[in-house]
């Protein structure tokens, strides 16, 4: 009587009610069902055969799912109940700055006058957007202490590559051929990967015992073959590179440029600026620092700001303020910088993400942004201090916006690894911290509470960590190894996924 299709109206798979497996949308599909509803157009109904020459026509249909709107809604809503998010709880995921994203930004991004604009519409019809982009660029330059910026890069890594291409164009314009870019061993993986794409080789410098770039080692590798140094400051250990001005001087002395990975900008907003530290190129992760929500893995936005001398190389077209018109009204247009490296995005970047970021900047204002940094650092240090006895503290000194601890002793004494701590924390109602990064810290736990979490939440988080350690000490690693216990699925077999690759529903059999 019933076909092989799965029931769509059954909530058994919602964690609210149990923990069944949610069928895929393909399993909900029944031939002939539909959800779509299109407008009545009265356009003449030319047959498909007359529209598409037979040589180009497909014979079959693209098989998609065939479901009712009801079943689609239930399916996706149930999926959403299987997903942790900032809106459900704290996400102390180091290096990711998973702060609360104000809802007002959703309202901004939903404005039809922003969301409904075609990117190819000419400037005369898009003055609002151009004005917005120019305003954002100015604010970002002020925050970073730079002269000009491109808003095109779609994420941090895209910003990095853009920055490296700027570096390359700069050296090329100055007749200098260089092959290497220096990065610390604690750097995020995107840094070396971008270096390669930028056509350079990576030279890695070690971290010293204080958790900063080993200055001597750096000096040893610095020469006229070095195109630039990529740093993040605070670095990925959450520590401020105190020698930054020295590093900048040394870099500039050999004609290298200093690149700032802005993923950790949250820590220093309104306190110190990359430009003032001596950086030449800065990318920002608006989806971290400026509270544009992360969307389960994107979209982000990775604008790149540069010092004056690099501005002529920026990607184009760039939005610019033109001379005001006769009535004094501001006018905006596009310009391509004279030595532009070219486009780095199909249109103008992730524009609606940019709009969100500007909204966040304006609500907070200069005063509020400094407050953001202060409280992000306060929270991280409170948690670090609170937990330094619970875990190992490989770099035991004041941190900036995040703290890197280690589960080394826990592993050695009780067999509980950072991974186990992370999984057990899920049972405690928190997202896990970042683990095993930076790579240089054994059993790393990288904890970034962000400024939007309250002291009460930090206390609960600390107690949760303490309970996990106490549990291991009292009764061994079994509970932690078996964790998580209360999640929609329990510990997932990652190895099997790679061994028997099933990357589409069609590959299941």
């Amino acid at each position, binding site marked *: 009587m019933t076909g092989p299709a799965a029931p769509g109206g059954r909530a058994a798979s919602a964690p609210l009610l149990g923990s069944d497996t949610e069928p895929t949308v393909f399993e909900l599909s029944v031939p002939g069902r539909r959800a779509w509803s299109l407008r009545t157009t009265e356009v003449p109904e030319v047959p498909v055969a007359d529209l598409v020459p037979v040589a180009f026509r497909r014979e079959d249909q693209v098989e998609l799912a065939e479901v009712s709107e009801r079943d689609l809604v239930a399916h996706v809503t149930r999926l959403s109940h299987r997903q942790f998010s900032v809106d459900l709880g704290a996400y102390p995921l180091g290096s990711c700055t998973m702060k609360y994203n104000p809802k007002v930004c959703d309202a901004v991004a939903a404005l039809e006058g922003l969301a409904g604009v075609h990117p190819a519409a000419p400037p005369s019809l898009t003055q609002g957007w151009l004005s917005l982009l120019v305003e954002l660029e100015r604010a970002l330059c002020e925050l970073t202490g730079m002269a000009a910026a491109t808003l095109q890069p779609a994420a941090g890594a895209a910003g990095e590559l853009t920055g490296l291409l700027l570096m390359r164009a700069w050296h090329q314009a100055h007749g200098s051929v260089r092959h290497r870019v220096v990065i610390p061993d604690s750097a995020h993986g995107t840094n070396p990967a971008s270096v390669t794409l930028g056509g350079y080789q990576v030279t890695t410098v070690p971290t010293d015992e204080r958790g900063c770039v080993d200055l001597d080692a750096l000096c040893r590798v610095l020469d006229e073959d070095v195109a630039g140094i990529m740093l993040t400051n605070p670095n990925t250990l959450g520590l401020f590179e105190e020698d930054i001005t020295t590093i900048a001087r040394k870099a500039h002395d050999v004609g290298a440029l200093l690149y700032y990975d802005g993923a950790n900008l949250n820590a220093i907003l309104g306190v*110190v600026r990359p430009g003032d*530290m001596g950086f030449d190129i800065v990318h920002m992760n608006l989806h971290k620092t400026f509270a544009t929500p992360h969307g389960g893995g994107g979209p982000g936005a990775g604008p790149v700001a540069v010092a004056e001398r690099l501005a002529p190389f920026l990607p184009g077209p760039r939005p610019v303020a033109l001379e005001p018109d006769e009535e004094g009204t501001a006018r905006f247009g596009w310009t391509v910088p004279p030595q532009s490296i070219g486009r780095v995005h199909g249109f103008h970047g992730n524009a609606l993400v940019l709009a969100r970021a500007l909204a966040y900047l304006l609500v907070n204002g200069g*005063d509020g942004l400094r407050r953001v940094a202060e409280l992000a650092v306060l929270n991280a240090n409170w948690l670090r201090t609170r937990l330094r006895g619970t875990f190992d503290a490989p770099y035991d000194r004041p941190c900036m916006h995040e703290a890197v601890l280690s589960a080394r002793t826990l592993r050695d004494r009780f067999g509980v690894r950072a991974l186990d701590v992370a999984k057990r924390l899920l049972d405690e109602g928190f997202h896990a911290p970042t683990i095993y990064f930076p790579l240089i810290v054994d059993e790393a736990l990288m904890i970034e509470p962000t400024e939007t979490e309250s002291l009460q939440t930090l206390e609960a988080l600390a107690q949760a960590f303490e309970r996990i350690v106490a549990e291991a000490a009292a009764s061994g690693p079994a509970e932690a190894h078996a964790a998580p216990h209360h999640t929609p699925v329990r510990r997932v077999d990652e190895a099997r996924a790679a061994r028997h690759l099933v990357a589409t529903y069609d590959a299941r059999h």
Partner: protein
Amino acid sequence: MGTYTPHTDDEIADMLAFLGLDTLDDLFAAIPEAIRLQGRLELADGVGEPDVLAHFTELAEANLARNDRMLCFAGGGAYDHEVPQVTRSLAGRSEFVTSYTPYQPEVAQGVLQAVFEYQTLVSRLSGLPISNASLYDGATSLVEAVNLGVAAAGRNQVWVSSGVHPHWRQVLATTAAGTGHRTTVVPLLDGTTAWPEPDPNDPPGVVAVALPNYLGCLEDLSVARRLCDATGAQLVVAFDPVAVGLLRSPGAWGADVAVAEGQPFGTALGFGGPYLGLFSTTTAHVRRLPGRLVGETVDVDGRRAYVTTLRAREQDIRRDKATSNVCTNQTLMAVTAAIQLSWLGTSGLVEVATRCARGARYARDGLLAIDGVEPYATAPVLREFALRLPVPADLLIERMAEAGFLAGIALGDHYQGGSHAVLVTVTERRTRREIDAYLAAFADAVRP
């Protein structure tokens, strides 16, 4: 000042005391005094949320081209398709919007399963079995496809049809400065690519072509495929994912990599972003795949589960040897596309593609009846088409805007005679009445 931090003054004092500090400034002791910001940022103090919303409403009002006011006949990689409330509501659920990359699969099955469904759907569209979890946009998908192709072929000569979106070609050129690829742009002849004979000493490693191309023309991809077969080059096809509702898929034409702009599936025009780069390839290339890939597995209880897989390709593990530097991608748009494609379903995709083609046919016939308006090329078209005009395209567009239409996109200096040529697109949202009004306005607007 924003109100998104919970700390009361008392709590700040308590916390500082716990740290043995006196002031918030003491938190920044590690920062050398010399470089600390003296004074305040030159940014206005924070204001109320309604003030900011009012500011953006003003900016939004200043965009005359907004879609609710001006009927859109522009396409060129960004399309005015129907986005039903159901897609908006579901894709807007905060669990999807405010979650991070699914590093902890046990609490990220929602995003992971949605992406798994997305990968399946993209593979069915492209006709190629492996699809990643998304890239930034169509342009960056092309770049990654070329990178993959060059690596696979072991040759960095890249032939790109000038039928590929001009912006995408520009992005490719920008990144080629870093990768060192040598790019040759192959011109169109009356709407389709005029492939040259390959130089046996420097054959292409990658051949890239569009389906349909930027002028809306359909090309016989077997020519490019034969070229690849003859030279051992990898065939990259940039396709229109709506048009494949009616057209043979890239996979069916023999593509090695297929890329597309996924914006048509539920994502707002949004002045060009955030969009969605679709990326598919053959199983042979799976270890060269850029970006994230979700795979199916089981949990310790044997229940079906999803996880990001083949991670060893990625930058966080492989670092400078990674297949790509992409980390954050466009997951929310991928989830959106999965929802929108399931809303459309098998019949809806065909219906949308057909309606686009019918509207385009109807509009094109009407436009070609206007004095002085000529086809830009004679190759067959589907849902977009280019026209030669008796007036500059920019002038036409300004005039049409006054009449309430975004008339299309000027071909500009990307194509010969492009200053007097326009690319016109019709989607399923345009009614006959709207097209008729457009035709009438167009006839007025092309008068010299």
